[in-house]
């Protein structure tokens, strides 16, 4: 067992535990903060695995932008301090969610265990250079299409929010993204 293994195990356990805490806590803002811990420790897992760029981008995009937006939205609408039962789900929904999550975990675990049955798998391509080369050669079109999709979503969201202003309600534009 190397140092990397130990760090990976610690970060993995932290990640799973904080993810669990995020969905079980009754404090609304604590859920968002546990999600931050979860995403940050996931970045740590990437870092231990040698994918430096992915780890830092994960930190930059998820912790720096997405979680901040989630916190912003919560603070702007409703962020009570202490426990709140406004967002409790029915028992049936929880049971179904548990079953789905459990079966997804079993499926993923089975695929991984059968896939790498005989020991370790050598992975090439985690480094920044290799990733950049792949991104700008064979994957350049999917990458650009994805950014176009995001742009369409952005413009669509803008159009939707503008059309809800009463003065502009008659100018509702059709958007489908």
């Amino acid at each position: 067992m190397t140092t990397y293994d130990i760090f990976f195990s610690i970060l993995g356990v932290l990640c799973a535990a904080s993810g669990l805490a995020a969905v079980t806590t009754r404090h609304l803002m604590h859920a968002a903060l546990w999600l931050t811990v979860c995403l940050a420790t996931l970045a740590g897992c990437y870092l231990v695995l040698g994918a430096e760029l992915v780890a830092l981008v994960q930190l930059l995009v998820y912790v720096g932008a997405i979680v901040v937006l989630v916190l912003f939205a919560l603070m702007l609408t409703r962020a009570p301090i202490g426990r709140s039962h406004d967002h409790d789900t029915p028992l049936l929904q929880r049971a179904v969610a548990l079953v789905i999550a459990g079966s997804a975990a079993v499926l993923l675990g089975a695929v991984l265990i059968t896939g790498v049955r005989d020991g370790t798998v050598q992975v090439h391509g985690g480094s920044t250079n290799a990733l950049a080369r792949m991104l700008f050669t064979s994957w350049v079109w999917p990458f650009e299409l994805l950014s176009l999709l995001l742009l369409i979503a952005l413009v669509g969201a803008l159009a939707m929010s503008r059309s809800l202003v009463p003065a502009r309600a008659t100018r509702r534009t059709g958007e489908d993204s």
Partner: protein
Amino acid sequence: MSTFGEVVLRSLCVLIAFLVLPLLVGQTEHKLMAHMQGRLGPMYAGGFHGWAQLVADGVKFTQKEDIVPLAADKPVFRLAPALGIVSYLLALAVIPFGPHLVAAGITGSLLWVLAVGAIGTVGTLMAGWSSGNKYALIGGLRSAAQLVSYEVPLILAAASFAMAAGSFSLVSIAHAWTPWWLLWQLPGAIVFLVAGTAELQRPPFDMPVADSELVMGPWTEYTGLRFALFLLAEYAGIVVVSLVLAVLYLGGWTGPFDHQIGPFWVLLKGFFFAVIILWMRMSWPRLREDQLQRVAWLGLVPLALLQIVLTAAGVVLTT
């Protein structure tokens, strides 16, 4: 055991720099602001021109009572100041003072600085929300809106420097630097300086802590040492932004006799940007919230995109 000792030594150096440089910036601010406003500033603590004023302030802060409001979310409230400190401490660790003089030589150090800066943002939001105070909450909201907006031009400007050098490493970027960059990367440097100042919520971008309307924004309920930690994080932020900009735009340790006094050049260039950031505070009134957003989205983002096009054209034409 020698590697372990080396790690401890490097961490200790970063910690000392982290504790000394912000005090230096703070004292410069005191004195500069005083002289620009035709007064003396602190003159008594320590004897010579009040050099120990900030040390005395620190001692004062440690003596104050540490109060956690009844309505606050206690664990989050207590944790929030630590995050800002940790983020700038981690950022300071990757700033090179020479070709080999860097505490943690990681290859993606520019991305690292931007990424760990995000942790401090979360700390500010936690402070604003967990105080259980409406002024703190409004301050936190303003912080979030401002930080998300200015993150975009900051990252675009940083991307321009990375493109020009062909690397994410601050050491490689400083190596790739030529005097030509002073003109070529000028719009990017301006965007980085302005967006960096806004990320630190320094005046004139201090709408989140606007003291005449929000008491002290997200830090309203903090007292004693925890409040001092927020202040330390703010000045450490100035140090980090200035030093990163010195490495990106002014070539870091490059200068006459850089084999002997390379670190001195980094500090001098960083100090130059720190003084500009302080000067901005003394010269401009606070921007209103809508003006803040206007500067970010209509001023800085187009300028940063223009810089990216300029950099790309330069890189394609010269290689």
